[in-house]
């Protein structure tokens, strides 16, 4: 999930009877499946939670360009390079759709950037892992974008109109991302023994972080109940994780790769795969800033922002000059 652990600031769910008239009308609209739009009345906690969730999601798209950008200049062929460029450009686009959606909630883009750069705002834990080989680009598309799709499709139906509409665009584009990743893995698996070993190594390193992308276990996910009442989250972390595992295991079997989980087996009675417990200590540690690449990722973002400052100022100065010239001509 691109938005993990979104704080709602709410300790306990309130029933309709406990709500004031405005909040009750709001909740009844959400329950009836009517979209909330920017100018509609909304509880302050809903607005703030959405800002956290959408901006976290947007930051994930933007920071997510870094691990993949690492391989653009070293892609093995021109075809792969063109595909990877298009994919990374899509991620930038997804970030921009989402920042725009968040801005409808009265937060400025600069404020969101400032929160990312100061470490106040989070982004998905997955992007704090390094991309060591070309196979990592395959594993990211296949597993990370695969996880993202499972998480994002339900958000197309979430209660906040601008967020839902941004997700529709994103989901349409995301399937290319997953397929190009699987295609990289497939080619490596059909290649030399060394190439197949490289694919297996990438899978070994990316499997558990991908599983953890869906967020903590349901019982440890303290903000889910409120987010579900507001319909900005539609399925629980464990439900989405299970779905991801169930659909990915046969794909790994097709590739002839082994998933690095000895407890993974088909459960005939439940018609789902049983799986082992991820290392949650690692998850919390990465989320709290201590993953292998957290500092490097933030440093790269801050550097890009600061070094772009003169460009932003120059563009504004140019626009002002042009506007003044035009006004003078009219006068």
């Amino acid at each position, binding site marked *: 999930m691109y938005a993990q652990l979104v704080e709602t600031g709410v300790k306990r769910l309130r029933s309709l009877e406990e709500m004031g008239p405005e909040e009750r009308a709001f909740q009844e609209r959400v329950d009836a499946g009517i979209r909330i739009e920017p100018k509609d009345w909304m509880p302050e906690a809903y607005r703030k939670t959405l800002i956290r969730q959408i901006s976290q999601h947007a930051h994930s798209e933007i920071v997510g360009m870094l691990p993949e950008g690492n391989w653009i200049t070293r892609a093995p062929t021109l075809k792969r390079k063109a595909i990877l460029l298009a994919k990374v450009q899509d991620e930038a686009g997804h970030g921009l759709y989402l920042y725009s959606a968040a801005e409808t909630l009265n937060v400025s883009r600069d404020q969101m*950037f400032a929160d990312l750069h100061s470490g106040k705002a989070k982004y998905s834990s997955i992007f704090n892992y390094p991309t060591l080989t070309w196979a990592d680009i395959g594993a990211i598309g296949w597993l990370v974008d695969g996880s993202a799709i499972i998480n994002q499709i339900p958000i197309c139906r979430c209660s906040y109109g601008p967020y839902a509409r941004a997700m529709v665009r994103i989901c349409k584009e995301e399937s290319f991302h997953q397929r190009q990743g699987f295609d990289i893995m497939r080619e490596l698996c059909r290649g030399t023994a060394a190439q197949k070993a490289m694919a297996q190594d990438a899978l070994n390193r990316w499997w558990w972080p991908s599983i953890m992308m869906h967020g903590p276990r349901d019982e440890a996910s303290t903000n889910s109940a409120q987010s579900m009442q507001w319909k900005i989250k539609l399925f629980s972390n464990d439900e989405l994780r299970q779905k991801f595992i169930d659909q990915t295991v046969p794909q790994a079997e097709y590739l002839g790769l082994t998933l690095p989980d000895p407890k993974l087996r088909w459960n005939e009675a439940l018609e789902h795969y049983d799986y082992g417990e991820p290392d949650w200590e690692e998850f919390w540690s990465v989320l709290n800033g201590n993953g292998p690449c957290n500092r490097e990722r933030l440093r790269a973002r801050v550097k890009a922002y600061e070094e772009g400052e003169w460009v932003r100022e120059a563009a504004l100065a140019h626009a002002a000059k042009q506007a003044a010239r035009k006004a003078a001509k009219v006068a």
Partner: protein
Amino acid sequence: MNKTEWPLWEIFIRSQHGLAHKHVGSLHAADAEMAMHNARDVYTRRNEGVSLWVVRSSDITASSPGEKDLMFEPANNKVYRHPTFYEVPEEVKHI
């Protein structure tokens, strides 16, 4: 942090199928020319359209959701504006 943000622009695209321009989202740009370039990169990476409009968000006047009933209710009680309101005898054709 930047003292001034680039202004916000709303982006409209006309698809290839001859329909009217449709709102697709927004973006920041210093001026109209840049908004046009950015809109092409952000919103038309997959043949989404054949024509783009960019409009400064601050130039749009929107109806208020609070006045929704006042604005749109009058249309609801004029059922005679719809063709289905009228009874057409079965033997009468092409009407």
